[in-house]
């Protein structure tokens, strides 16, 4: 689903990303670990086409990102650290607006079902997002991804700042997405969460992917040790 080949990104003399190679297949949840500045967010920004690469390429479902004729944007969804929605719109209205921008027009009942699927309590659906907690906003973000029926979902530290219960709820949703055959690339600082939900785990440092592991090959303690040694 996602294929990153020899990807480099330079800002002047600063080499932000160095020869990144990575593959995420359908049903896989690839968790990228690393300190701030390791290149996780840059990788996601490049994958979403927000910034152009210096060299190398990214293919999503066989189509190259930044190719004007490609339709990759219709295949991907994005959940940032804080899903910044419009505070003066309700959860339903936000979902409707973002879905319409992606080319989907749903009835209210369908929108409600996406929000419920993302575990947002029913009474919050028609409330303005300005009063939502971070966890509730993240759930609307997931609902947006579900409504778009994206094959590949990028998540940029989505559980950062969430309380343990909200993190647990979020993790379960990500696992379910993987089970549904979605490919997920998630940048995170949370080692234990990565072990819980990731099928694959990568450790980045200074723009390089230092380790790329299968979850089955490593336990949480080994991962923590490896992570601390790497960074």
């Amino acid at each position, binding site marked *: 689903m996602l294929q990153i080949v020899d990807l480099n990104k330079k800002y002047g003399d600063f080499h932000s990303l160095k020869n990144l190679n990575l593959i995420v297949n359908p049903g896989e949840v690839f968790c990228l670990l690393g300190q701030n500045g390791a290149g996780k967010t840059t990788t996601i920004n490049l994958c*979403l086409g927000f910034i152009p690469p210096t060299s190398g390429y990214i293919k999503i479902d066989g189509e190259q990102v930044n190719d004007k004729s490609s339709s990759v*944007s*219709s295949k991907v969804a994005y959940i940032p650290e804080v899903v*910044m929605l419009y505070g003066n719109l309700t959860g339903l*209205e936000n979902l409707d*607006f973002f879905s319409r*921008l992606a*080319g989907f027009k749903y009835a209210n009942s369908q929108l409600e079902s996406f929000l419920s699927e993302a575990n947002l309590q029913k009474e919050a659906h028609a409330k303005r997002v300005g009063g939502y907690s971070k966890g509730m906003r993240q759930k609307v973000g997931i609902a*947006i991804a579900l409504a778009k029926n994206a094959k590949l979902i990028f998540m940029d530290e989505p559980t950062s700042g969430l309380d343990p219960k909200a993190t647990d709820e979020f993790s379960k949703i990500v696992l379910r997405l993987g089970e549904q055959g979605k490919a997920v690339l998630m940048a995170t600082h949370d080692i234990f969460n990565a072990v819980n939900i990731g099928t694959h785990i990568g450790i980045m440092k200074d723009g390089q992917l230092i380790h790329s592991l299968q979850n089955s090959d490593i336990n949480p303690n080994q991962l923590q040790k490896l992570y601390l040694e790497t960074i």
Partner: protein
Amino acid sequence: MNKYWNIIRYEWLLLRRDRAFAILFGFVLVLSLYTIFVGYKKYQYVKQQREQAASKQRKLFLNQGEVNAHMAAHYGYIVVKPSSLLSFVDPGVEPYTGTTIRLEAHQQNDPVFVPASGQSSLIRFGELSFGLLLQVIFPLLIIFSSYRSVINDRENGTLKLLLSQGVSLRTLILGKVLTYTMIYLFFLIISVLIYALLVKMEIGTYAWDQILYRLLFMILIYFLYYFIIASITVFLSAVYNSSSALLVTLLALWFVFSIIMPKATANFGAQYAPLQSKQSFNKSMVEASKTGIDNLPPIEEYKQHFRDSLMKAYHVTDLKDLPFRSSGVLMQADETYRNVIYDHAFGGYKDTIRLQNSIATFSSLLNPFQAIKNLSMAICASDVEHHFLFLEQGEKYRRKLVAELNHQDAYGEHEDVSKDYFHRIPDFSYQSPSIAWSIARRKLELTSIGLWSVILLGLLISGTLFIKKI
């Protein structure tokens, strides 16, 4: 197209739910209606005053009784400029030009009773009209309502989420530009509809089609004008990183374009082509008649030649022997001579004013505010060209009236005309020009608005590709 509609729909919903904008929009609506109603009341008052004055003068003219035709030509006729129905939308130069002219034999008088001269010094600097609101205040409000539209989305991260949905920055920016253009166009249309209703009540079907064309054209050019303002604001909102720096830039642009440049070009125009004083204008006419102009000999020579040729034609040696009263014919010859001198001098006077205005007209290519200002006055029939038209029609009426009275003096049964005679002279009736006439004199301004719109549309379509997304 659907994406644009969705952006417009939700952008509008967001603005409606923002308390600050709700207050702002309420303020705009109240201000629009206030200027329309105050303007309408003022129009009614001015119209009544002018109609009363014109009617009174007509009565005085008709009731002169039996008088000498030449005396009647000296007594003359007073014409009052009718108030343009659209002048209360944009008063243009009307407050600063005279409204009443005394038409009499031998000389062309200046229009008198300048409305602004009776106003307080504050109003003389420019009254709050609907036109001022549309041209100066609305652009400022567009800036205030839209300058954070993209920068806000970028600062709080919503832009990334929007772009990840597959919507391009170009679509987003164009959608926002259309939203703000349409919001202010909506206020314009509401106000114009109310205005049209008031006008319809006032005039019925008389000249309604011309008013309607002018209103529709007004909506069209203001649509383009607001599109220009919204495009610049939203585009810069996508380019700038700091909202405070952006606001300062936009306010500076607004100030320079709508306040400084028009004043500067007007001052430059006055310096570049100084206008003759009335004294100097009259003196130049006297000089011209003394020396003659082009193929016209000096006046005394002309008069002598006319007298001689008249006597020769009728084979007489004394004017008294002519088969008609010579005074009327000689007076008309003198009138014809002076008309040529006046046309020459007044033509130069008009040329000077047009040269002064041409500086502002050319600056409209750089400044859309100047373009809309001139176009608005033309649409509302309140610019200097419409004032000239009134003067020309007044002068034409004067010439016809004087010629008629001179004819009566020369060929009438008696030197005195009967008291019924004056009833045969039709009243002065100002003929309003068509919108095509008004607009034909503002081609450069139209070109400016059109060019700005096309260039900015091009910038929104292709320029957005070069803006960094995050």
